[in-house]
């Protein structure tokens, strides 16, 4: 063993070989290696795309000098599934089923951007029933909580705070159970449809929602108690992944990262949609443009989302029985779903109506389901505030029953450009923290 290596590692074996010195994998030995080995030479290492700390199939190419990162680049595309291209071969309503699979941690935001663009193209933005918009806002805000919980949980896991991870996934389960109650699914909901939502809150759903909110209120303080003043947690996060306002604007970064620079940009307030201007909530900002500030913002935003959810519940109580789908039957998807003995399907009353009572209703049902509706030619851009920042859909219609082109401006995709600026000059271990503070979801990055 070389005399410059003065540590003992029973598993690493010898670093002597006939081809020169071998560097083992235990780390922490760069100071001793440098004089004999690399001598200021930099090495390029490949982190990912199957690395447990890169938040999915993200590949980072790092140029290291010792443990210091000189150059960091992100390689993406490993989860590209051609969703935008696929949507050009489906009807406008079926498109929701595809785009909900992009950012699978915050699927409702993607659905919202797409459906908002379709409704603007159709010119029915003002015709969406109030109750439909309340249910949409309810789902969007519950989704913000579950997405932020994932961000905090995986971010904690990647720095070794496994309790944060188990707590985060435990509480996300509360939200997923509520999703299952409302939409029937825990993910891939396709629940926000052009014209409204397909289903009303089911029987007993309101009680479950109230219980869920109460439980979340009990659980959320645990994160603050565990992390906010935890010296190890702060030591790992404070000052890491620094990105100031000018950098965030130049790189197009939105969401908690932008708000951690003190900028109070939140589309729910600045360009409200679906009645957000009527809800009482605050935009959380901090003057700590680092990973710790972003963690605290996510923590506080969950409380603001809970405030909105509670207002939604009040409004749902006041609007019982009101429509949840646009009145225009040429657009409204015929989703009278119930759960029967053989699974979920159209309700027996609807089947009886179209199969036994009205030929015209059957023709209409068949036409709207197979052909869909036509959307007048033109283009629209609809942006919503997702948990990760501005998610927007640019939809181009050619007057047909299928999208001519849909493009999603995914916040994960854009924000990930900040990984170079956030991690260059820092230690290798801080790259993990910086990536976690961006909270990219590769399904959204690669689409």
């Amino acid at each position, binding site marked *: 063993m070389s005399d410059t290596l003065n540590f003992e590692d029973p598993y690493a074996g010898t670093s002597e070989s006939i081809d020169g010195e071998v560097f083992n994998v235990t780390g922490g030995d760069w100071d001793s290696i440098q004089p004999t080995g690399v001598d200021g030479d930099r090495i390029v290492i490949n982190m990912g795309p199957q690395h447990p700390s890169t938040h999915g199939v993200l590949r980072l190419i790092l140029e290291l000098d010792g443990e210091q990162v000189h150059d960091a680049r992100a390689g*993406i595309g490993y989860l590209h599934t*051609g969703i935008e291209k696929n949507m050009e*071969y489906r009807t406008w309503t079926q498109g929701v089923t595809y785009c909900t699979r992009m950012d699978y941690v915050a699927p409702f935001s993607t659905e919202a951007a797409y459906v908002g663009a379709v409704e603007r193209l159709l*010119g029915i933005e003002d015709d969406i029933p109030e109750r439909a918009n309340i249910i949409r806002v309810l789902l969007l805000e519950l989704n913000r909580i579950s997405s932020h919980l994932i961000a905090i949980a995986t971010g904690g896991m990647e720095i070794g705070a496994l309790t944060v991870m188990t707590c985060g996934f435990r509480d996300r389960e509360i939200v997923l159970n509520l999703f299952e109650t409302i939409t029937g699914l825990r993910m891939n909901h396709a629940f926000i449809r052009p014209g409204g939502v397909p289903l009303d809150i089911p029987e007993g759903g309101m009680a479950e929602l109230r219980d869920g909110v109460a439980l979340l209120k009990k659980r959320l303080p645990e994160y603050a108690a565990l992390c906010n003043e935890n010296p190890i947690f702060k030591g790992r996060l404070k000052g890491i992944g620094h990105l100031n306002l000018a950098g965030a604007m*130049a*790189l197009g970064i939105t969401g908690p990262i932008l708000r951690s620079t003190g900028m109070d940009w939140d589309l729910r307030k600045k360009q409200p949609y679906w009645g957000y201007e009527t809800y009482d909530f605050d935009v959380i900002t901090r003057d700590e443009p680092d990973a710790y500030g972003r963690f605290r913002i996510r923590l506080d935003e969950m409380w603001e989302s809970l405030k909105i959810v509670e207002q939604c519940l009040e409004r749902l109580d006041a609007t019982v029985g009101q429509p949840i789908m646009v009145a225009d039957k040429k657009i409204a998807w015929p989703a009278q779903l119930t759960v029967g003995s053989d699974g979920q399907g159209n309700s027996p009353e609807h089947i009886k109506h179209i199969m036994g009572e009205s030929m015209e209703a059957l023709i209409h049902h068949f036409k709207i389901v197979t052909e869909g509706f036509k959307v007048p030619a033109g283009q629209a*851009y609809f942006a919503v505030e997702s948990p990760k920042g501005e998610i927007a859909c640019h939809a181009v219609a050619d*007057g047909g029953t299928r999208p001519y082109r849909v493009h999603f401006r995914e916040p994960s995709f854009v924000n990930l*450009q900040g990984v170079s600026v956030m991690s260059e000059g820092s230690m290798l271990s801080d790259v993990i923290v910086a990536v976690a503070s961006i909270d990219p979801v590769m399904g959204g990055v690669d689409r």
Partner: protein
Amino acid sequence: MSDTQDPSQPTEQGLVPESATQLEIVNVREGAFGVHGSGDTSGYGTVRRPVVMPGPSRAPFGGWFDDVAEGIANGPGLGNAIEKVVVDRGEITFYIQRDKIVETVQHLRDNAALRFEYCSGVSGVHFPDETGREFHVVYHLLSMTHNRRIRLEVRCPDSDPHVPSVVGVYPTADWHERETWDMFGVQFDGHPGLTRILMPDDWPGHPQRKDYPLGGIDVEFKGGFNSAPDQRRSYN
């Protein structure tokens, strides 16, 4: 197909409004359901309808749209940078001359009255029937100062798919332009490293072009075969 039509010529089936002076015809739809050779005797199979995108608007455009339009036109050397303006569904689109796009976004970003300091994204749209301007590169700009959104469009032909890069003005456009190159094959001149981003480096073709097939194979179900999605009979 040209995007301008002589209004004195009779339009197909009278479906085009006579008041329209400049038509953005991007396609012609034939038949009721996009099916050919089906022995359809209903007459619907002979229907021909042009696909017309919203036509150009004339000033005044209303509200702050006019301020931005004048702001661009008054920019240094940008007197004729705007090819046309389309106001549709409450959104404004400026069609910008290809060689003026960098100067235009620079002016839009730096002028205090305009201050579009934020670029939401860059993407492309492919119109294979628009001869000479098949590719549209679309820029969505946001002014956080004034809380305004605009859309810029630059068109370029398939035979010369070059557009100047705006990365120097908006660094965020880096990955967006790479994606547009990857998906459409539009080359952004001046981009610091225009490589593929989502598809593998050695991938042939540009998948979001309309002439690029979706792919997929027939799926057997109980002895019958379901065609791949892009091969199925479909409505149009």
